[in-house]
């Protein structure tokens, strides 16, 4: 099993990003699809008309549920058990895998068909099933493709986003043993035929869970291909993997989530299929599994419970909107993030699920903190703030970069006294004479290398603002216009509003 080793393509995000940046196919494919999804979302928001209100409602539902997670989890489990579901709890990936394998062994299963589940990716479950001789088949088209390629998903909802049509045709042709045309219909048609047989012979159907409804103990799946329907109706046994935070209290809350999730993910008003499943097949049901298991997975999630800086991370509904909005993701794709989850949510989630700070890689640094993720998030998770908190926690735990730490000590010394700052600027004005030409510095050495590989650094002007201030101030005072009563009144009003606690608005939280 290769999944336990360092992520593909290098140990650091820089090395992995380098690979992606040099891969024109990948960059084109990722850019094309993220743009399509992002624009789809914007259009859907506009058509919806009251997006901000619903977004706030979604956030409130998630905040409330997570604040009372123990209560709603209990309610969900009691109801699911009353419906005849076997509910299991898994503290970590090892537990969840062991529970899944035990069920497969008890059922003497030979094959498992799976619909898309990020939790199962988190557990590396396919490898585990294969290790006991059980064939695991991904049935979501994108998942099927990356399974053939032996890769991990590079996007939460579009697992094979990094591949173009021709690369996919090549993979599927190899699978089919015949040359398939690089035509979407032909390729999808092939996979449909191939999977049909697999659905019919599978012993176990395995799914993820988009939402778990506490009031009835039901689980809800959103999908576009119908494969999850097959997975949950044909095999005799169903196993559902759900993160412990997937809960929402009621079906009326689902209305809000069903409004937010598809629109945020793909710009659809609703996915082609939305299935609500409440227990195994009853005698009067035409189809469905005879036996149903739900494995509720913690695997690091409870670390965020009660942590004021990170609890909101549990509000995530895994729509992928932050990936599509992220300018960094667009250039480096998902694999550069090195974990199961990619993009801004992955950059925060991957370290957050890992208690040991020493083992965090530098993924939280792969962000310009532009806030596009927060703006795109349908439940307003402040990911850009969390990225900074992660960086701080790493530094506080003594795992910061040593040279950077020393540099920041210098920064603090410099910036706590304006005299020192002034001296350094003056030294720069003198020192740059050796390197500046035509008001610019093009030298590509030391700390300038990264910057000047793509840019020209402007040279410092002869005098800083503070050096010019004396002259400027004298000039201004001499020629100052008198203030109009209107402006005077406006300024006074602004100060009064502040005293009343009004202040002036800012867009953030």
């Amino acid at each position, binding site marked *: 099993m290769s999944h336990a080793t360092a992520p593909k393509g290098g140990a650091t995000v820089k090395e992995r990003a380098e690979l992606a940046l040099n891969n024109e196919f990948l960059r084109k494919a990722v850019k094309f699809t993220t743009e399509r999804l992002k624009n789809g979302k914007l259009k859907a928001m506009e058509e919806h008309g009251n997006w901000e209100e619903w977004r706030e409602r979604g956030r409130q539902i998630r905040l409330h549920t997570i604040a009372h997670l123990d209560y709603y989890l209990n309610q969900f489990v009691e109801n699911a058990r009353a419906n005849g579901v076997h509910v299991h709890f898994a503290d970590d990936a090892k537990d969840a895998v062991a529970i899944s394998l035990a069920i497969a062994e008890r059922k003497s299963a030979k094959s498992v068909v799976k619909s898309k589940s990020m939790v199962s990716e988190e557990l590396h479950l396919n490898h585990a099933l294969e290790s006991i001789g059980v064939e695991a088949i991904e049935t979501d088209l994108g998942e099927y493709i990356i399974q053939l390629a032996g890769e991990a998903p590079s996007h939460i909802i579009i697992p094979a986003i990094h591949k173009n049509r021709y690369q996919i045709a090549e993979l599927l042709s190899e699978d089919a043993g015949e040359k398939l045309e690089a035509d979407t219909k032909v390729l999808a048609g092939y996979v449909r035929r191939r999977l049909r047989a697999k659905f019919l012979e599978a012993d176990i159907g395995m799914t993820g869970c988009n939402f778990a409804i506490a009031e009835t103990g039901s689980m809800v799946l959103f999908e576009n291909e119908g494969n999850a329907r097959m997975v949950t109706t044909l095999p005799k046994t169903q196993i559902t993997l759900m993160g412990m935070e997937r809960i929402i209290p009621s079906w009326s809350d689902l209305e809000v989530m069903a409004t937010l999730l598809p629109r945020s993910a793909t710009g659809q008003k609703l996915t082609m299929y939305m299935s609500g499943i409440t227990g195994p097949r009853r005698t009067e049901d035409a189809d469905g599994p005879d036996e149903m298991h739900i494995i509720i997975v913690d695997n690091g999630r409870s670390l965020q419970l009660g942590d004021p800086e990170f609890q909101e991370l549990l509000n995530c509904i895994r729509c992928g909107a932050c990936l599509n909005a992220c300018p960094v993701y667009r250039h480096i794709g998902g694999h550069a993030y090195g974990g199961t989850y990619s993009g801004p949510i992955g950059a925060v989630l991957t370290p957050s699920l890992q208690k040991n700070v020493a083992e965090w890689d530098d993924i939280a640094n792969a962000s310009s*903190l532009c806030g*596009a993720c927060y703006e795109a998030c349908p439940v307003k998770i402040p990911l850009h703030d969390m990225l900074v908190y992660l960086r701080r926690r790493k530094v506080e735990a003594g795992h910061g970069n040593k040279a950077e730490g020393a540099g*920041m000590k210098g920064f603090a010394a410099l910036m706590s006294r304006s005299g020192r700052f002034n001296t350094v600027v003056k030294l720069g004005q003198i020192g740059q004479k050796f390197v500046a030409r035509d008001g610019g510095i093009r030298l590509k050495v030391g700390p300038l290398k990264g910057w000047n590989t793509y840019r020209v650094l*402007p040279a410092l002007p002869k005098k800083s603002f503070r050096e010019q201030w004396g002259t400027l101030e004298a000039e201004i005072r001499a020629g100052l216009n008198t203030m*109009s009563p209107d402006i005077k009144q406006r300024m006074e009003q602004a100060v009064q509003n502040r005293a009343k606690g009004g202040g002036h608005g800012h867009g953030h939280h």
Partner: protein
Amino acid sequence: MKASLFITCISDAMYPRVGEAMVRLLARYGVALEFPKVQTCCGQPAFNSGYWNEARASAKTIIESFEDSDFVIAPSGSCTGMIHHYPKLFENDPVMLEKAKALQGKSYEFTQFLVNVLGITDLGATFPHKVTYHPSCHGTRLLGVKDEPLALMNNVRGLELVPLPHAEDCCGFGGTFAVKMSDISGAMVNEKSDHVKETEAEVLVGLDMACLMNIGGNLRYRNEPVRVMHLAELLYEGVKGA
């Protein structure tokens, strides 16, 4: 009523002309900006890198610099946005927390002050050029500065504003990000410059010199003859001749 200029370290050392334009523009309306010389940097490089003790040293200097000001005005949405993080930075220090909140409440990005406080959108400026505008991330997303610069530009005679494709995309600066993740940052700024070039604008204008130093430096590296200016500079140039 005391209005102070928070010049920001980057404009102080590298773009003093931006500070000068702000001071001269506001003087036309009788607002005499003060310049407390003890100010330095907002502390954002340290804050964003996770060095909060070091950021606090810087933040303390800024808080003290403007303690007796009624308005603190900066030519940057990002550095003003950093002031909005000060309460979090001092959440365990009740005395500093109060001061941090007070500073946050009276801090303005330049166009916020001009448009929202003073109520000025038409400065009587003329600038007969084709201009495109990059809305910087922190100003738009953290402070909500969206309409203010557009209102100001729409009232400039002769100014032809060409929309920048994918304007909302980050330019790739991100402070230390540009150095630490230089190749990702480079890919981002290259894309931004491509979009600027598409507009065929003569002038790229913005509200944050850090972003403009990034895009402008890349444009210059690629020998693209686009003039890069802060909106305060553009407005001042536009009223100087008028």
